[in-house]
Structure formats: C-alpha cells, structure tokens
C-alpha cells in the first residue's frame, strides 16, 4: 500500500516538475524580411522582425533580429543575433567590421565565424530562401 501511495503521488508531482522538458511542437513558419533587393551589399545588416513565441501560458509577438549578409549566391546568409555562448545579443561594430558580444567579449567576423572569446561556435544560421524576390527566414 505504501508503494502504491508513493507512486500515485510521486508520478504526477515529478511529471509536473519535469514538464518543461517536453518541447512544444514547432510551427516552422517562414517569416518575411522584405524584398531582397533592399538589402545592401557589402556588410551585414541587422533586420528586426516580428515573430510569435509561446512563453509558458503566454502567446505573444516579440521583436527579434536577424543579421542578413548578401553574398554571391542567390540566397543571402542569415544569422541569429544571439551569441551562442550565453545568449546575449551581439552588436555589429562598423569601424571594426565584426560582431562583438557585450557579455564575455566574444568576437565574430562578418561571416559569423568566431574570431576571439569563449563562444563555442559561430553565430547560428537561420534557414533562408527567396520567393518572388522576397527574403524569407525560418528559425531553426
């Protein structure tokens, strides 16, 4: 009987506590960043966009930033603006031609590769495609 009582109480309690481990299904929506022709060549451009996120019991639209870099290929490279080290927002420093993280000094070159500091990898890339001249991205 003791075992039954223990299991009957501990299973729901543990399940309740561990519920954040269950990832919500992703909708994988493509988000428009606008006509590709308006993205300048030569240097990365930070483009804010609106996306819907589920924060626990709150579904809200938030502003995020993508970093768009046009290259020779038809589809530009699109980076996330979040440092892969401890999730601070990186900043593009025009004079130095590189991205800098204000937290632990991570530095990335214009192609998102780690140049210095503790980040374990380069800037994360978003899926990108161009449809009818409009740049679309998808958070990975």
């Amino acid at each position: 009987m003791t075992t039954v009582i223990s299991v009957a109480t501990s299973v729901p309690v543990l399940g309740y506590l561990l519920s954040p481990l269950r990832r919500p299904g992703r909708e994988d929506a493509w988000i428009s960043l606008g006509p590709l022709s308006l993205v300048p060549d030569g240097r990365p451009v930070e483009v804010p966009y609106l996306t819907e996120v589920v924060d626990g019991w709150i579904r809200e639209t938030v502003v995020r930033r993508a970093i768009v870099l046009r290259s020779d290929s038809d589809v530009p490279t699109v980076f996330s603006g979040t440092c892969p080290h401890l999730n601070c927002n990186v900043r593009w420093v025009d004079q130095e031609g590189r991205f800098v993280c204000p937290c632990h000094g991570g530095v990335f070159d214009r192609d998102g590769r780690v140049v210095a500091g503790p980040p374990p990898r380069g800037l994360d890339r978003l899926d990108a495609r161009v449809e009818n001249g409009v740049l679309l991205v998808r958070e990975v």
Partner: protein
Amino acid sequence: MGDRNSERPLLASARDAIASFLLKPVPEGVGWPHVLGSGILFLLVLQAITGVLLAINYDPTPGRAYASVRYITETVAFGHIIRGLHHWAASLLIVVLLLHLGRVFIYGAYKRPRQATWVVGVCLFVTLLAFGFTGYLLPWDQKAYWATVVGTKIAGSVPVVGDALLRLIRGGDMVGAPTLTRFYVLHLVILPALVVPLVLVHLWLVRRHGIAPPWEEVRPVTRWLPFHPFQLVRDVAFSGLLLAILFALTLKVGVPLEAVADSSATDYIPRPEWYFLPLFQLLKLPVFYGRLEFVGGVLLPAATILLLLALPFYDRNPSCLPARRRFALAAGGVFFTAAIGLGVQAWIETPAPPATARTRGEQLFEGLRCQSCHAGPGEEQKSGPSLASGPSEREREWLAAFLVNPAGFFPGSEMPATGLTGEDLDALVNHVANLRADYGTRVQGFPSARACATCHRRQFEEWKTSYHARSLGTTFRAMFVIFNYNTGGQRLEYCLNCHAPDVKVKDNAPQLSRQLLAGESVTSEGIGCAACHALRDAEEHPDPALQSVSFDPGPLERHLKEQTKPLRPFFKEARMCGACHDYNATYATSYATGRSSSAAGPPCCTVVRTWEQTAFARRGVTCQSCHMKSEMGVTTREDEPAYHGFPGPRNEAFLRKGVDLAVTGFRQGSQVEATVAMVNKTGHPIPDG
C-alpha cells in the same frame, strides 16, 4: 481557555528559557569580532519582513512585474524605503557573511567540536547566494533579465544533461513567464523553507558548543561573562549600525531600477550583481572556452563549495593559532585575493555603454557633477554661482584657467579643480560657455529634451517613462522595416513626421532612416519636448497639405531667451494632439501609397475625428483631460500640473479606468466558448491611438 494552574508552569518555563538564553556565559575574549553572526541574523529578519511587505504589492508576471515594482517604489507610501532596505540588505548580507566566514576561518573556529556548525553555516551561505540570484530577476528590468539569461545558460553547459537542466530552470526555452514564477516560488517559499531550519540548527549548535573564544591555546579562558549585557549590547549596537548603513544607502543612493526587460536590446551591457562578478569573469579566461566552460561555470564553483564544506574534516591540524596554520591561511588568502581580483577585473573591463548623441562636454559636466552646485536657467540658486548668466564667449580663456585652478582665482573657494587638460578641458569650457546660448540666443529649431530637463526635471522624468520617449523603439523599428519594404523605401517621412519630428527641422530623414533600418543607434530622441511645444497650430499653416505636422519654433525660442511661457491656447485642445493622433489622413494615405486617395488613413491616426463625434467632445473633455492627468490617470485636481508621462492603453491602471471587461465562458468537450463584453468608457474607440 487553559486553567490558571497549568499556565503558571508554562510561563515560568518560558521565563527560564529566556533567562537561560540571555544569561548564558560567554568566554571573556569574545567581543566585537563576534557580532557578525548576530548581524546576519538581524539582516535575515529584516529581509523576511521587507520581503513579505514587498510581496503584498508584487505581481510575478513579466508584463506586470516591472510595473508593480515601479508602483511599490514610486506610489506606495514608504515603498522606496521598504524596497531600498530589501535591495541593499541583500548586498550587505553577503558582505557581513563573508566577514563572518573569514573571522571563523582565521580564528580556526570551524575545528572540533564545531565542525557541524561550520557545515550548516556554509549551507546557509550557499542558500543566501541562491536567494540573491533568484531575487534580482523579480524586478524584471534589464539587469534582472540579462543576468538571468546568462546565469541560467551557464547551467546549460553541463555535459549530457545541460539542455534538460536549462529547460527545467527556465521552465522552457527562454527566460520568460515560467522562469519568473519559478524564481518567485524559490525566493518566497522554497529558499525560506531551507533557511529557517538551517538558521535554527546553526543557532542551536552555537549555543551547544558555545561561542569560540579567540585562540584559547595562548589565552586560556579564565573568566566567563553573561551574554546579557556584555555581548548583547555589542550585538544590538552592530545591528543598529547595519540599519543606519541601509537607511543611508536607501536615502542617498536610492534603489536602482533599470529600463524594463527587453530581449531585443543590443545596446545593453549585461552584468550580474557584484558578488557574482568573480564567477562571471572566470568564464572570460581562455582556459574555460569551449567545452571546458562547464568546468569554469559549474565544476569549479561546486568544487569550491565542497572544499569549504569539508574544511573541518581535511584540515586536521588541531591548532587554531595563525602561526601554526600558515599553509591553511595562505591558501585561504590566495583564494580570497583571486576572487577579489576577478571581481575587480570584471568591473574594470565593463565597457562603456555605446556612445550617445551627447557631447563630451555634456558627459564631463554630468560626470563632474557640476549641476550639484551650479543652477541652470530657471533653477533656484544653489551653493555655487548660477551658470544661467554666464560666462560669455569672450570669457572662455578665463574659464579654462579657472577650471584648472579655482583656488588661484578665489583663495578658499570650495570649487574643486577639475583636473582636466587638453581636449577634455576645451570640451567642458565649450559646454559651459554654450549653456546660456543653448537655452537662449542660439536655440534654433529643436532643443533636446535633455536640455529642457535642466529646468524642467520633473516633466523630463515623466516623459522618459512615456511612449513618446520610446517612439523609435524596437516595435517601431520592426514596423518601419516592413513599411520600408512595402513602399519601396519611398515614403519613410510618413512615419518619421510623427515618430521623429525633429527630422523636419534637421532635414536628416534619410540619415535617420538608414540608422533605423540598420538597427544602429539613432541621432533622434523621438518625440521630445519641442515636438509639442514648437508645434504650429494647424489653422496657422498656409499649406493645407502640410497642416498636420509642422513647426514654429518661435515661441519656444522666445521662452528660452526671455523665459516667456511657450504655452498657446491650442495646447489645451484636442487638435494639438490631432497633429499626429489624427494625422491628416487623406494626405497620409496618399503619401503612404503614392496614390491620391480620399479613403480614411490608417486606423492609428483617426482618434481625434472619432472623438469629435462623442459627448466627450461636446462636454469639453479633451485628450489632455485624461492623458495628462497623473501617471495612473486618477487624480483630477484642477491645479495639478500637466503630467508628461502620457499614460495610454499599455498602462494597466489607466486602461482599467477606461474599460470594463466581463468574460463569461463554458466548456463544451475540448472547446471553451467565451463571451467577452467590453464597455468602453472613453471618448474614442479602443484600441486606437
């Protein structure tokens, strides 16, 4: 209810227990160094009391946490003192705890028979650090948010289970609503439930083994004194000193609250509270880059705690004397110095925030606190000479020499030497010399809100909280990008006319547009003071197509030169707000689409014309009647000065005054049907702008 016979022994035993507590003999050598423990107890009790008081008015949801903390700080009677005491006591607690730990370590008081006391004490130390970490998320300001983003992500570096751990701590992928409620429950329920028994056991052990006298080996205890009054007086005096320090910090330094948490901010430099800086800096060491981040972020701190916990068991040296414990003291000293060194290095390496539009002279003027002694135009006289009436341009050389050596000009002057040379000295001289000009003869177009703040500090502080001050914020930027793409980048002035009116005067719309699209710092302050106070009355404007937003800086310039009031009759009328909130819709629509159109403009721009059709308009209740009446829109005294925080629908208390909501619903299988009834008590549709 009890009978008298059973009460007497109960009272007697309580009295005996108190007497035993107060009169417990303590060794003669015990003195001021031993007051630290009781200081910690005092601070813990203070934290419990102030914490409960704060919880009465705190709302642990992201949208409201910040507003409730501001409400506590700015509106609730003594709220800033209660919050200030709680905030500063958290830091002071760590200071006193470290001193206490250091004292016990140096005295060797963790050795037999007091090993258990030490172990419980270290557990308390860790619990109080957890209190600090969970506590400073609660205000939901920038510091809270970013420190938690970084702090929790460190847990994600644990191999194999890191990701699961991170999700469990955050309650999901990101720092958000579930994180806040988790931290709230930890801070208010779980951690207090740990601290209370730990404190009780620690106190019981202290009573059982007695307070350790300093170095008994060389100074044997020959005399015992009762705890009361000999030690109790010192303890009470020390607690009084701590309270005085807390009040001084609260009243002199204030209680910090940064801007509301913004996950998209790129100009914020995240830093944790001072006691976590060594750990923060540790992760900057190249040895902990990449996969070894787990070692610096988790393993090393955990090992340190374990080493501290086990100290009495591996330090078997029976002596407490420093001379016979050189290795232990040296190791402790090295560790302590390294921690302080890391903390100081982190503090030194904190970069300055990204450059603002302020000049170097302005920065120096503020940094040297010149305004503490010198009044600007319109301000009451302060202890030093007013800067409103001088110096003139021809006095620059004199001013430069004076700033270098004030005592050389006026022996005995309280004015300190600035210590500036070269370009910095020139910058400050230029700024001071231009002060009068800035506020008087030289004003052209739009003075910045910061300049107005020299005399109108209250209005400036109110304005800073408003959406006018954030008219170029991240949401606007996102919409601006979309607008740019939809219009092919041809009609950007349409947005900027209202969101950054100074572009019309500065004629720099292309430059500002580029900055906004590239996510860079902008050279506009958004809708500043002059946007309204230099606004031209629509009826005065000769060109109907440009009636909506155009400016006449004349009255403002006269105000700055001659201190005349820049108020004009139409400032109390709705059509003043209509310049933007009823943005000449026909014109605006054609402007946005590039086509001539008679259709109504975008819905955000029609509020005044809809108001005109209501009874509010007929009764003379204007925009200003509600949106410039105190922050919460509750005070309606006629003599109340106009409130420049412009509360709107994002201000919950304000919205509650304007709307009655009733929600009824029922469940049908897996679906819920709800009916929402809204009674709009305002003079315009909601939502509207």
